[in-house]
């Protein structure tokens, strides 16, 4: 089954080329693109089915790429990769379905870019070689730049440039760190990279991931990009692509730089707490749905980073689980916001409101999503946040106490969002615009998976257990074998 890791990214890449270049009618292109994405989802499901939770890396494939520099094409899937790949393969078709529903113009380019984006993101999640990872990390920028710059809102060019500048500064720092690591080890293969103690390389590498996640105070690009991008792309950005940042921390920054990461733990815990509180407060003040979701997304990502840095097995599992939950919910929230924008033509809370009247399905979906997103007990997000907070309390009770405040704040901003969208009366109530009908096709699957994970969190946690037992940054496990 070693072909599986490769097939998961080659399939969308090949489909992107075909969609972009082959002559076909528009509906044929759309159908083909969606079919390719669904086929990739099937591949991801096969991977889940064949995955053996008791083993580490599976479906591995390794061959020489540039032997001079010790570059290998090494890919494989372990528990963490598995859930991330599955998340990607699940979210991209839904986002594309939204794009088709929203009647994106110039569909040919749009579909090709969506497929290319999926290919790049999957590649970075299955990469076991630093350069292959970097290739995916950089390559996904290209479709994103064109998707935001080509299909975004009125101020899209500004947002794109800001997004590009922020991310590329990070990427190039990452590149320096990666080249230095690779040359000093004689290989870029993760299996051949030995632990490193240089704080500079650590900071250079983690800067890239901190910008991508985003971690306070590197989140300057986020609000604008999430507002100006098309809603489904914003959903992918916050749901899937931001995970590349935390994934990079888990996969590379923390295991390779054990000593520096433990030395600098105080900094990242502080930044994560600051981001958590600040962005939760900011989310409460936003005048539109996208603003609320954008800031809540930064806050959630801060919580994930916190879980990674407090250094305990529970918090690690919680963080990975949170990555999945937040991915699904943030995708869902952005698609809902996008739905409201497209259907009612308004974004500001001041101009929408009382949408619940006569629209039972919309009200139900918004309410359910909101409840899940504020981590109501019993929801999957509650489980993951609980694990992270548990780890935080073990690290230092004060950190746990501060982080717990965020739960309260999350309830505040999510409830405000629900009432602003569904119930608040505005001067000019929106009367036009139908309820959710066929749109349920791209909304309900996300909600269903969230529901499923609420009932059975074990589906994710069992698969990432192997990594968690290794206790990535736990002080107790210094020197223990890292689960790669």
């Amino acid at each position: 089954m070693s072909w599986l890791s490769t097939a998961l990214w080659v399939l969308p890449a090949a489909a992107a080329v075909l969609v972009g270049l082959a002559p076909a009618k528009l509906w044929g292109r759309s159908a083909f693109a969606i079919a390719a994405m669904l086929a990739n989802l099937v591949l991801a499901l096969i991977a889940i089915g064949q995955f053996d939770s008791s083993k580490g890396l599976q479906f591995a494939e390794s061959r020489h790429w540039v032997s001079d520099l010790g570059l290998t094409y090494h890919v494989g899937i372990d528990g963490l990769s598995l859930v991330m790949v599955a998340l990607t393969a699940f979210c991209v078709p839904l986002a594309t379905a939204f794009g088709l529903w929203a009647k994106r113009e110039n569909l040919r380019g749009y579909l090709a870019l969506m497929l290319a984006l999926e290919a790049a993101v999957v590649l970075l999640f299955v990469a076991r070689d630093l350069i292959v990872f970097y290739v995916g990390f950089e390559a996904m920028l290209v479709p994103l730049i064109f998707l935001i710059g080509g299909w975004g809102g009125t101020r899209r060019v500004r947002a794109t440039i800001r997004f590009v500048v922020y991310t590329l500064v990070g990427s190039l720092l990452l590149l320096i760190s990666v080249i230095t690591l690779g040359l000093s080890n004689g290989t870029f293969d993760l299996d051949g990279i030995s632990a490193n103690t240089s704080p500079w390389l650590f900071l250079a590498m983690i800067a890239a991931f901190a910008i991508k996640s985003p971690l306070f105070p590197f989140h300057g690009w986020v609000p604008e990009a999430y507002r100006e991008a098309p809603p489904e792309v914003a959903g992918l950005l916050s749901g899937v692509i931001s995970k590349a940042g935390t994934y990079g921390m888990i996969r590379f920054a923390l295991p390779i730089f054990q000593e520096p990461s433990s030395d600098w733990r105080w900094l990242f815990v502080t930044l994560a707490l600051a981001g958590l509180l600040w962005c939760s407060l900011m989310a409460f003040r936003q005048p539109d749905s996208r603003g609320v979701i954008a800031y809540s997304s930064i806050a959630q990502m801060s919580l994930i980073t916190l879980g990674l840095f407090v250094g305990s097995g529970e918090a690690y599992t919680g963080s990975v689980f949170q990555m999945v939950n937040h991915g699904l919910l943030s995708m869902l929230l952005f698609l809902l916001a996008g739905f409201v924008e497209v259907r009612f033509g308004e974004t500001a809370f001041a101009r929408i409101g009382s949408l619940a009247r006569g629209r039972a399905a919309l009200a139900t979906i918004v309410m359910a999503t909101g409840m899940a997103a504020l981590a109501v007990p019993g929801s999957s997000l509650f489980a993951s946040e609980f694990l992270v907070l548990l780890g935080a309390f073990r690290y230092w009770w004060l950190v746990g106490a501060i982080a717990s405040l965020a739960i309260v704040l999350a309830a505040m901003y999510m409830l405000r969002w629900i009432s602003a969208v569904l119930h608040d009366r505005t001067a000019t109530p929106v009367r036009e615009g139908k309820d959710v009908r066929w749109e349920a096709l791209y909304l309900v699957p996300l909600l269903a998976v969230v529901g499923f994970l609420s009932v059975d969190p074990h589906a994710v946690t069992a698969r990432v257990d192997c990594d968690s037992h290794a206790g990535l940054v736990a002080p107790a496990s210094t020197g223990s074998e890292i689960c790669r």
Partner: protein
Amino acid sequence: MIAAISTPSVDLLAIGPALLLSLGALLLLVTGSFLSGERNRIVSSSVGLASFAGAALWAFLQSDDADHLAFSKQLSIDRFSLFVQIVICLAGVASVMAGWGTRRIGERISEYYTLLLFAGSGMCLLASANGFISLFVSLELFSISLYVLCALAVDDESSLESGFKYVVTGSVGSAFLLFGSGLVYGGAGTLRFDLIGKALGQGDQAHQSFVLVGVAMVIAGLAFKASAAPFHMWTPDVYEGAPTAVTAFMATATKTIALATMLRVLVTAFDASSNVWSTGVGGIAMLSMIVGNIAALRQDNAKRMLAYSSVGQAGYLLIGVVAHTPLAGRAMLYYLAVYTAMNVGAFCVLSVREREIGGPVTIDHLRGLGRTRPLLGAALALFLLSLASFPPTGGFLAKLYLFSAAIDAGVGHLALVGIVGTMISLAYYLRFALALYQPAAEPAQSPRPSHGVPIAALGTAAAAAVVIWLGVYPEPLLDAARVAASSLALQ
């Protein structure tokens, strides 16, 4: 008694590619006198294309022979020179394709291809030059051809200006080179690179001031040709004014040959003083990376943008000269091949667009191209992204390779400046790439009827395929570059 007359050994086959190009040029001079009009155009273009392609093939077939010296040891026929010749000839092929059917040259089409072939021939000779005599002769052969080529559209003021600027600054560069080689002769007592290397290797002659001044002048002369800062002033005007196909050839082949020659001269002849010149070349490299990339930020004319970008690219490539390890040599050759592919590709697209709008291409003329002409727009976007070194294009691997070589050779500070330069360069490459997908400012006019566009499009497609291929499966070319670089005494 008959005195034995010593005849120099002349192995004409050793310079097969250059010879073939010269023969093609001579043939064109003959046919140009008999043919006219459309027939002349087709014959000239075909002969030009066939000569370049044949020369590339010849160089490729020659690469099985062992390295040897020819023409009284004035020429070194080795894998390095053959690699460079192949790159140059392929750049020639692409340039002929880019300019296929152009009307800008008017009736002087056979002269145009004659000069292009002579320029290619000079470059092929220069690639194997093993002494300052052969270096200067072949350098002047291609330079003078290019001066005239730039000014060939004599009805066009910008073309004349371009030719004039090029001849003045180019002559200064040549003069520097000539004077420098004279000074070196004073120190080493020979003009052959390998003998200079031996002579300077013994004793402390390598650090005599006039030898060092000579080396500096040789570097400056070659930096003029490579348009590295601060010797780049001519580049934007000349690139802008010259016919686009000529610009494509100058931007790729001239840069390739100038940098390859610089590497060969410096490591073969002046290895003993490498501690001195590597600092100087490092300074030029840094300056080029910064000046070129910053100046490109404000350019709206596509050719001027590419001109400044090529100054920046020269800076990256010079890092390879500074490092001059075997790894750096390979990285540089690989980078040169990728650079040639992505630049000729970009110029092919511009050449097509230029003919459609009937004038110089600015960023406004590219707006909306990705929507009205999806394939052409996508190809240009690909070349720009490759120049900006995004994976999975060749530009990414080339830069990765080069910067790795720099860090490996202990000149990490240059790699750092290179990375900063790359960051700056993203702003203008992406500006042009994004413009392709923005709505056009004015409603799209129907394109003018233009000739030869399918051939230029074919060149574009081939270049795009090469750019992707080198980014995904670089090993064959890296092997070739490894063999080629081993011909030089890199260490």
